[in-house]
């Protein structure tokens, strides 16, 4: 069992079944998620255009 509060962009999450929606991303791009006192992850959301551009750049390299 995991223990600790869950925070998204500093706001406590009370329902862990809540679905991820675009409004949970800062500037529509980044989510800061904290679990417990000291476990952090930064999530960067990528659009289809960004993924296509990155693939293009990789192929050029």
């Amino acid at each position: 069992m995991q223990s600790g509060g869950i925070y998204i962009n500093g706001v406590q999450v009370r329902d862990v079944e809540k679905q991820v929606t675009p409004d949970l991303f800062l500037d529509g791009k980044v989510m800061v998620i904290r679990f417990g006192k000291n476990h952090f992850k930064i999530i960067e959301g990528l659009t289809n255009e960004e993924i296509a551009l990155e693939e293009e750049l990789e192929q050029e390299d």
Partner: protein
Amino acid sequence: MPLLLSPSGDKFGKTAGNAIFLDPNLTHPFDLYQYFLRTFDDHAAQYLNIFTLLPLERIEEIMREHVKAPEKRLAQRILAHEVITLVHRAEVTEKCIFQTAALYPAPSADSEGGNLLRSERILQAFADDEVMLKRYPFTEIHGMPISRLLKTVGLTKSNGKFLIHIFSVPLLMVSR
């Protein structure tokens, strides 16, 4: 040697679920920094005494300054700085401070950060940190339950049971 207790009164230990490790592969330096930054005021002096090599006179001086404006978290900032520098390196500490400033910008940060959006500052601070920064297509994570997202990014091992604390009250959440 006194038994070390967490702010909730539990002993430090793996079974208590509040373990921190010196090994950066087990506890990321940023997480370790945040842990000490969030030390309760009541524990700050004790932790400065136990976990740092600062002279006792200096610790007393820090605590005298700290109580004048506890909201500035002087004792916690020095504690986190000293611990990370001892365990890792000064450069790692500087990076943690930079990353923390990106996550929690001071009111004056707008002028320091130019026209960068908050999300851009955060991405810049964590750009070379593959452990902390996870990148996913929106199509993959939109609609995903938060319990599963926690598992996907490696914050939990299962998306089954969580003991979450709301206003310090532990609540068992069982996800489907």
